[in-house]
């Protein structure tokens, strides 16, 4: 009976006219994020009386307006969308007085979300990568025109000892991320980012992920060079490190979630098993670089980023294997297999050359071989060791390249070598100059005769991974361990205009102007109007001297 009376009183109270205190209370609750107006069926209790949220649309609108003042643009956009989705039924009923209230809220909130620049800026400008950095900026900041970027310094080169602080600037269609750029007394540049890892069902602790990122960036930094050989180090800072930087130089934090093994990573979420090439790619986004890989040409992609200029030069923003090809590498392998012991303990240098020479998959980049090449096994007989000529044999053609990869069969002995052969035939489509240029680079790499960059396939021990090394290329064998030293196959992890973009941020008229122009199409949908010059990698990305 008591419960019945309580229910009746609650039903009556819902219909009750709420006083100004209840309205103010609701507005505060929405503004503070404690009540979600996207749930149309929600009720709230004030002074022991229950009210329906949908009876208070004007307060809902004002609460959202306050909330937007503390939200970033993306949050505001999706909150408005969620609010409208929750009111879909009301919007459908054109005769409903409630609909007029919802439309009034839309009018109120629409301009705030879109800002002065209107829908074009909202949908396109903010989708370029440093969008992610704008997550740190509230709409209020943006509307007030606050600029953290020290634009007054323009594109001037930093002198040793000087620094520059970069931060997102959503008013600019193509902007930079949040980082501190310093120039050391020896002329080396240092780009420092505050990475704030937060666990999101991940199996790696934030401190361990920070350590991993720091290690990967240290490896990458061993060969990040500008076109004139200038060096750039990229440093990831944690909470403790950042506190040691003077407040005026401190870059804003970049929050990154740690997600479960197997989930896909992006610059704001790292899968627990993320590896160095992906970490470096994602950190480059935080430094203001955009993607350059092709979105799949389907109806789906036409809703998205088909304006992107797809580059052809070896760029880490398009192809992850650039990371491993651009750094000098030392790999150590445990010589555990019978084949390894037989080969490495023999005095036959030809056998060792085949066993430890570059493989087809190391020389021909993954994306290239799966796009333009096919592979077939050749009969293992009919070739003597004297003819084998190392692990790779190359034949260039006008329209591509054919390579023969050679490896040793498990039954190989110095007296009776078994040479296994695979042929990879790569054919470039007509007029695809990028493909032909890559084919020439592949031929150069194959002819260089460097050692493998990973352990031979019969060795089960995991390679220690590439680590910076400046020893001359070659291999050594000691204590049953093979050490393979390979030189970098590319002049730098970054292409020249990537390098300048990180140095210059968003300044106009500098050496990164071409990059900024072409990268601004990276997250746009048609109509595109991409200038022809952006199709030329030397304009977009520059060329190493």
């Amino acid at each position: 009976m008591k419960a019945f009376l309580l229910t009746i009183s609650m039903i009556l109270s819902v219909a009750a006219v709420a006083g100004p205190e209840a309205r103010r209370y609701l507005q505060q609750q929405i503004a503070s994020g404690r009540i979600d107006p996207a749930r149309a069926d929600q009720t709230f209790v004030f002074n022991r009386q229950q009210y329906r949220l949908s009876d208070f649309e004007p307060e809902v609108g004002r609460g959202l307006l306050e909330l937007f003042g503390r939200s970033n643009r993306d949050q505001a956009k999706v909150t408005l969308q969620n609010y409208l989705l929750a009111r879909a039924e009301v919007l459908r009923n054109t005769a409903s007085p409630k609909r007029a209230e919802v439309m009034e809220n839309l009018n109120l909130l629409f301009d705030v979300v879109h800002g002065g620049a209107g829908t074009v800026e909202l949908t396109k400008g903010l989708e370029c990568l440093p969008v992610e950095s704008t997550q740190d900026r509230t709409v209020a900041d943006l509307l007030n025109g606050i600029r953290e970027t020290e634009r007054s310094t323009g594109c001037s080169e930093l002198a040793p000892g000087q620094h520059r602080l970069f931060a997102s600037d959503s008013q600019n269609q193509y902007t930079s991320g949040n980082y501190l750029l310093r120039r050391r007394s020896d002329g080396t540049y240092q780009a420092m980012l505050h990475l704030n890892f937060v666990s999101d069902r991940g199996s790696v602790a934030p401190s361990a992920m920070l350590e991993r990122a720091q290690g990967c960036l240290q490896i990458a930094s061993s060969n990040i060079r500008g076109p004139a050989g200038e060096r750039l180090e990229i440093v990831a800072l944690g909470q403790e490190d950042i506190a040691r930087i003077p407040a005026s130089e401190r870059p804003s934090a970049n929050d990154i979630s740690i997600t479960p093994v197997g989930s896909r990573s992006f610059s704001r979420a790292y899968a627990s098993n993320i590896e160095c090439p992906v970490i470096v790619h994602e950190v480059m986004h935080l430094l203001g670089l955009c993607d350059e890989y092709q979105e799949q040409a389907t109806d789906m992609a036409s809703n998205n980023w088909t304006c992107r200029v797809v580059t052809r030069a070896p760029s880490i923003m398009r192809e992850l294997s650039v990371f491993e090809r651009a750094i000098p590498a030392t790999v150590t392998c445990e010589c555990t297999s019978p084949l390894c012991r037989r080969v490495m303990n023999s005095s036959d240098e030809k056998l060792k050359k085949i066993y430890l020479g570059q493989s087809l998959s190391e020389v021909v980049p993954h994306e290239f071989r799966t796009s333009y090449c096919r592979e077939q096994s050749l009969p293992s007989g009919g070739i003597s060791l004297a003819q084998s000529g190392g692990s790779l044999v190359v034949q260039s053609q006008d329209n591509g390249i054919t390579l023969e990869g050679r490896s040793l069969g498990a039954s190989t002995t110095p007296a009776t070598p078994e040479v296994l052969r695979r042929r990879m035939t790569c054919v470039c489509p007509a007029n695809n100059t990028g493909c032909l240029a890559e084919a020439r680079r592949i031929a150069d790499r194959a002819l260089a005769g460097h050692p493998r960059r990973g352990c031979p396939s019969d060795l089960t021990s995991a390679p220690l991974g590439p680590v910076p090394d400046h020893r001359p290329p070659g291999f050594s064998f000691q204590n049953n361990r093979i050490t393979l030293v390979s030189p970098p196959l590319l002049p730098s992890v970054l292409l020249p205009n990537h390098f300048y973009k990180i140095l210059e941020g968003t300044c106009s008229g500098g050496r990164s102007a071409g990059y900024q122009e072409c990268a601004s199409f990276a997250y746009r949908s048609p109509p595109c109007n991409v200038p022809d010059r952006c199709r030329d990698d030397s304009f977009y990305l520059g060329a190493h001297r």
Partner: protein
Amino acid sequence: MKFVLCCFLFLAPVLHAANLTHYQSSPEGTSLQTFSLSKSMTQTRRTNAFDRSLKLRLGTFALAGGESVVTEERLVNGILAQIQTVEETLRRRGSSFNDLSPVKPHGAFFMVENFRVSESSRIYPELLKIFRSLSLKKWRQLEGIRITDDLKSLTTIRGGKEVSTQAFSYAFHCNRERPPGYCLFKDQGILFVD
């Protein structure tokens, strides 16, 4: 009773074909999986990133006999009706539903027909639930490729039949010489191998 039945029919959403796609582009490659909810119920699978139920297979699949997607179809059409209402409202302001769907580079999202639903949308969890439910149905491969669990052979399937089988070269298709890694197949898609 007649009144109840009449109201039920009136309120039931109009069923028509709808495409539900899960999409994500990342430096590894583009992941795309589409369910076409129509009479000829099909699944286009260019990735195993979103579900591992069909293991190492890419291509086109048909719903196996005895399976039904009526519930999922009704739910998707209900969501689509909501989206269309919001779209109409925003169109009058010179904006659109997609304008208010933030896209993060490498972030996953759904497409319901041509409407993009980002992870932060209130309807994303509902779509994910429907997507998972569809993934768990029994599917029969019509076209595409299949790789054996031991990664030793690659079979090509056309018209629901195996037309060829060859040795699978992990080192050629995948980014490393050995698993784990990801493998690219021209015109077919991407497979992630643990």
